[in-house]
Structures are given as structure tokens and as C-alpha cells.
């Protein structure tokens, strides 16, 4: 009966390799090659032609404040994004008010695909001293006219990052929460546990991996955004991305720019390492 049943795979091994080859080649040429270039060349002293740590010494002496500033901004933004995403996902999972649920579901995703450069322009007008935010606060009496201050500094960067990245993480988290087994939640509810307690004690631990993956992806993205600090923060200290662009455009100094790039990889790697270590530890436990 099954004599004419075909091989379950439509393609042979060799055909599969041929098909995937162009994509791998493109990735190698346009990503892996420049990536190794950037890693190697951060140790290259182009004036003397030697190798060493000169670029890093120069980068740290010129930009250590900016490196710290970047770390603080990105970490703070990631934390706020995490808290807001859990709050949004949590309400969507545990909320009972139908109108509020529908409104929230419709509302929170708007900035999802809005590019950073557009978000920066929106905030540049909204958060300015004479922007709509201050105007509305003054008109409603929440703020005295003289107290109105521009938010176009580190706060502007954090607000823009949070505005733009929260929908992405919240979408992932809400999706993971929606596919949870409801029986434990219902059991806790029947025992009289409050919603906040259920969220922190039962729901969040089960979506931990999704939350952390979303936060790490956001962290990496925020680490490489150039337009937002350029447009919202005209003073020093500023973010490392601005320094990299400046070293290249003003001095053609690829050495220091690549050293800063290396530092930004390292800052990402530390976060990823913490996550992986956590994963290994949890993976070792019986489920």
C-alpha cells in the first residue's frame, strides 16, 4: 500500500546546502567579515602600524564618562521597559474590566514599528521646554509656567527608548502569558490571592525566559541607536554611538571608533552571559 510513499523530505542534503548557500555567503560578506574587521582593527594602531591596546587607552581617557552614561541609560531604560511590559502583559492576562482590556490591547502597540528617528523627532517637539507636554501640564495647573523645563537630555533618551521598545517586549510577554495554563492562576485566585500576588508569584516566573529574551534584544538595539542621542541630547556626556560617528566623520579615526565598538559588544556580552548562566542554573534544577 505504501510502496509509492516518497521520502518525507522534499529536498536532498546537497540541494538544501545549495539553496542555503547564497544567504550564508551574503551574511558572511556583509556581517561576519565586517564584524571580524571591527574586532581586529580595534587593536590596530594605524599610525605606527603596530598592534596593541592604544585605541582602548585613548577611548577610555576621552570617553569613559560616555561609556558610563551609555551603560546607565541603557540599563535604566531596560529596567523600565521590563516593568511596564510586565504591567501591560499582566493586566491583559489577569484584568477583568472588558472595556479597559480592549482599550489597552488597542492602545499599547502603536509605537511598535515606528522607527527610532521618527520617535526622536516626535519627542524633540513633545518634550521641549515649549513642547506639548509642558503646555498641557501648565494649562491643567499641574505645573507653574516657570517650572516648565526641557526634558531634552538623558531623560529624553530614556523616555524615547521606553516609548519605542515597550510595545515590542510587552507583545512578547503578553503572548507568552496568554499561552500559560490557566488552572494554577484560577487555583491561586480561588485561594484568595490578589492579582498582584498572582502576577509576581505565578505568572512572571513562568514567562521569565520570554521577558529576558525581549529585554536583551531591546538592550542590543538601544546600544546601537545613533539618531536618538544625536537628536535629543546635544550636550555631553552623550552615548557611545555618537562618539563612534564623531571619531569617523571628524577624524577618520577607525581605531578609537572600533575600540568603542568593542566595548559596546563587551557590554552586550556581559548581559548575555548573565542570562546564559542563569539559564544553565535553572536548567540544572528538576522541573
Amino acid at each position, binding site marked *: 500500500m505504501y510502496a509509492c510513499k516518497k521520502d518525507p523530505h522534499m529536498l536532498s542534503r546537497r540541494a538544501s546546502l545549495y539553496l542555503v548557500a*547564497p544567504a550564508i555567503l*551574503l551574511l558572511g560578506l556583509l556581517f561576519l567579515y*565586517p564584524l571580524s574587521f571591527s574586532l581586529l582593527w580595534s587593536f590596530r594602531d594605524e599610525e605606527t602600524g603596530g598592534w596593541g591596546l592604544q585605541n582602548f587607552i585613548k577611548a577610555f581617557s576621552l570617553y569613559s564618562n560616555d561609556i558610563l552614561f551609555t551603560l546607565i541609560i541603557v540599563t535604566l531604560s531596560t529596567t523600565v521597559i521590563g516593568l511596564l511590559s510586565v504591567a501591560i502583559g499582566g493586566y491583559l492576562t489577569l484584568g477583568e474590566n472588558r472595556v479597559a482590556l480592549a482599550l489597552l490591547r488597542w492602545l499599547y*502597540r502603536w509605537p511598535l514599528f515606528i522607527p527610532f528617528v521618527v520617535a526622536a523627532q516626535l519627542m*524633540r517637539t513633545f518634550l521641549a521646554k515649549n513642547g506639548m507636554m509642558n503646555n498641557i501640564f501648565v494649562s491643567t495647573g499641574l505645573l507653574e509656567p516657570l517650572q516648565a523645563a526641557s526634558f531634552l537630555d538623558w531623560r529624553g533618551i530614556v523616555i524615547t527608548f521606553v516609548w519605542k521598545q515597550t510595545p515590542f517586549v510587552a507583545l512578547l510577554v503578553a503572548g507568552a502569558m496568554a499561552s500559560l495554563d490557566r488552572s494554577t492562576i484560577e487555583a491561586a485566585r480561588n485561594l484568595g490571592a490578589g492579582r498582584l500576588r498572582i502576577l509576581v508569584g505565578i505568572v512572571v516566573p513562568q514567562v521569565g525566559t520570554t521577558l529576558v529574551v525581549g529585554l536583551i534584544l531591546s538592550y542590543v538595539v538601544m546600544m546601537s541607536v545613533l539618531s536618538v542621542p544625536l537628536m535629543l541630547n546635544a550636550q555631553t556626556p552623550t552615548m557611545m*554611538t555618537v562618539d563612534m560617528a564623531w571619531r569617523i566623520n571628524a577624524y577618520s579615526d577607525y581605531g578609537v571608533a572600533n575600540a568603542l565598538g568593542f566595548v559596546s559588544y563587551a557590554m552586550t556580552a556581559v548581559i548575555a552571559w548573565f542570562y546564559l548562566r542563569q539559564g544553565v542554573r535553572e536548567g540544572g534544577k528538576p522541573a
Partner: protein
Amino acid sequence: MNLLRTCLTGALLALLAFAIFGPITNMLVWSVAETWYYPAKLPQSYGFSFWERVFRPQGNAMESLVNSVVIAVLTVIASLAVAIPAGLALGRGSLPWRSLFLLIFLLPQAFPSIAVHMNIARIFYGFGLNGTFLGVVLVHTIQGLVFSVWIATAAFSAVDRELEEAAANMGASPFTVFRSVTLPLALPGLMASAIFVFLISLDEFTGTFFVGVPDITTMPLLLFTASMEGNYQIASITALILLVPSVGFMLFIERFLKSDVLAKVGS
């Protein structure tokens, strides 16, 4: 107690709505402001003369709009040309080390891309690719590749194998099976990936900043330059033009990306 809770929920939702729509509204007001001097809370006069300046056929705004669309279309073609075969191999083929291949395509998301972009610009400089369409399209393609390969893989994985076997049993050649069964069934997912790549290219800033400038200006770079020069009307109109497709995609993505495809992402 219940009333208090309802009021609190309402207040929080209103705050969220203000945080999300406030900046967008401010941009909309700027886009139709003719004159708006400090410290007026609203523009002194409204009008569309800046719109006319943006859409003037020979203006540089129109040129960057055309550049953006041409580059985005070429980027979609380039990404799909390599992502469809790769997705077919990863989704339906018998590829050794399949998960390793999938992981490799995720790498660009794991590194802050700016340091890679500036080195691409340096390498391209040696080949005379800086300031050319080809150079910008290549930079955009690599960013779109991650998503197009993963979505194409998911789209091909979701195709029902029994339908293919039925066609094959009735004597269809492998290519006919692909053309008449596999490809049409995977098409909605591939469409979603094409639209997504189009949007990535349309919105791309950093790569174009290093590779395209000063010869090739796209919409995001025009927006950036206008904003830094203090020309908030032009910047806001450009922002609005970029905002519309982004929000449209957000609202309609679920129609294109069916849940059966989404469930296969990464599996």
C-alpha cells in the same frame, strides 16, 4: 472599592493614551503649522505650504522619497531572492546542522550593529560602493535578511506535507509540486516577510548614515537633517510620511502573519 478601582484603571489608561498619542499629536500640529514662534502654545497660523515644498517634484524631499522607495523595493527583491531558497532548505529540506544555520542568521541581532555598519562603510569605500544605490541596498539587505530567512523558514514549515505528497503521488514533478502547492501555501507568510523587509529598509538610519551620505539621502536622513537645522515643519511632515506605513503594518500584521506561521517561528 470597585468604583475606586475603575477610576484608577481609567486614569492609568488615560495617562498611557497621553504618553502614546501626545508626541504624535504634537508632530501632527507641527506638520500643518505655518508659523509657530516661542512662547505661543499653538501655531500662529496654519497651512500646507511646507507640504507643497516637500512634494515639489524637483525638491530634494521628493528625491529622498523616491530614493527611499527604490532602495526599499530593491532590498525586498535582494532579501527574498536569497531568503526564499534558504527558507525552503531550512523549512523543508534535509539540512545538516539545521539549528546551527538558524542561529547564524540570528547573529546580526546579537551584536550592536553600529560598529559593524561603520566597518561595512570602510570596506565599501575600497570597492567604490559608498554613496551608491548598490551599497545602501546591500546594507539594508543584511538587516532584512534575519527576518526574511526566519519568516520564510516558518512559512515553508507550516505547509501541509500531505498536500505535497498527494500531488507527487499523482505524478507531479518536484518542481511542479513546489510551484503549484508549496509556494502558493507559503505565500501569505512570504508576503508578510516582504512587507516587513520593505519597512525595515524604509526606516533604516544608521547604515545609510555611514554608507549613503552625502550622495544618497533617504527619508530618515532628510528627517534628521531637517530636524537638526531646526526646520520642524519639514521634519514633522517627513516623520508623518514614515509613520503611516509603520502604524499601518502594526494594525494589519495579524492578517498577513497567520498564527500557524507564527507558531513555527524558530521551531
